């Protein structure tokens, strides 16, 4: 009996209009991918990035307890105790060594997207976002400020883009918000749709529902505090900073103080 060749399987996951091809020879992991990114799989899309995923048994892979990201000689390296990823930004190719679960690939996807977006004037933010009447609204705030609460309280005519990681790209005019599969406490991926961003709300829980303007510096600080970005590269940090300033210049940023019940949505959209 001859050797059985391992068949490589691949799929393309398109988030924010940026298709990333994932190739693996592990059928179990392939099923994990399809299940995890279901609504975002677009096999017909032309990838801007390709990852080969090598599946290893669960356990410690590297000595890095914390997530570590470094860049040298054109190569990014991303490591945590349970995975090792590296890629070449210029060639758009990379590899990930991990166990057959969605956690490592999820971390890698978030960081690769944040780096791709940084050069295009876009932002990945720790924020909930949703679409109502064809316009997108983003809800940013520190942990406990109410992102998941806002998502949970959304009425039926609101489509949730995400309760955890919001995806913004610069458009010809303003910004476009995209749905993402990155879920928080709701444990439910967002819808794979997009809409023009109408407002950014900096969340705070309070005793009444109010919407107030904030100064430009408060707005930029509020946005930057929510930005998902790990690189210490001065050029990329500069891009992210400029993107936050540009977002504040183009989109209203407001302080939304709210009582955590459904009435808050009467003020949005």
């Amino acid at each position, binding site marked *: 009996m001859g050797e059985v060749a391992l068949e490589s399987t691949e799929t393309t996951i398109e988030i924010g209009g940026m298709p990333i091809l994932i190739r693996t020879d592990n059928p179990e992991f392939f099923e994990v991918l399809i299940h995890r990114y279901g609504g975002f799989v677009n096999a017909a899309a032309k990838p801007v990035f390709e990852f080969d995923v090598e599946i290893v048994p669960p356990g410690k892979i590297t000595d890095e307890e914390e997530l570590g990201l470094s860049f040298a000689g054109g190569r990014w390296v991303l490591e945590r105790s349970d995975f090792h990823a590296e890629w070449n930004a210029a060639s758009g190719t990379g590899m990930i060594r991990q166990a057959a679960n969605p956690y490592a690939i999820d971390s890698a996807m978030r960081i690769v997207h944040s780096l791709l977006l940084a050069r295009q004037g876009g932002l990945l933010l720790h924020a909930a976002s949703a679409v109502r009447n064809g316009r997108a609204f983003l809800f940013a705030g520190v942990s406990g400020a109410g992102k998941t609460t806002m998502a949970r309280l959304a009425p039926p005519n609101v489509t949730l883009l995400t309760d955890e990681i919001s995806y913004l790209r610069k458009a010809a005019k303003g910004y476009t918000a995209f749905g993402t599969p990155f879920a928080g406490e709701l444990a439910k991926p967002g819808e794979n749709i997009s809409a023009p961003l109408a407002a950014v709300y900096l969340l705070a829980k309070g005793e009444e529902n109010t919407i107030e303007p904030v100064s*430009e*510096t408060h707005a930029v*600080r509020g946005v*930057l505090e929510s930005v998902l970005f790990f690189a*210490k590269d*001065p050029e990329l*940090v*500069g891009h992210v900073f400029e993107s936050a300033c540009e977002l504040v210049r183009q989109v209203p940023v407001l302080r939304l103080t709210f009582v955590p019940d459904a009435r808050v949505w009467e003020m949005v959209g």
Partner: protein
Amino acid sequence: MSPLYIARSKSVAARMLGGEMMIMSARDSTLFDLNDTASAIWQAADGATPLHEIVKRVLCAEFDVAPEAALQDTEEFVKELSTHGILLVSEEPIPQVTK
């Protein structure tokens, strides 16, 4: 006492917003808001002009403050910013440091 020279670090991003200079450190992503006098010093930090000249030209002329007290306060301020890596401070002129 040797004059001090100050220059803006290359490892920061900065923008004037609503009359305040906002600066972000690439080293640790820390954000700094500078008020109008601090913003004026930041903008004058060209690596070539001695600090006492900046104080005299920018602060004393524009903000009507006494030179000696202003210089002392400014020295403390620039040393504070240098500890965060967003401003370079030297007893020699600092070449080619502006973006």
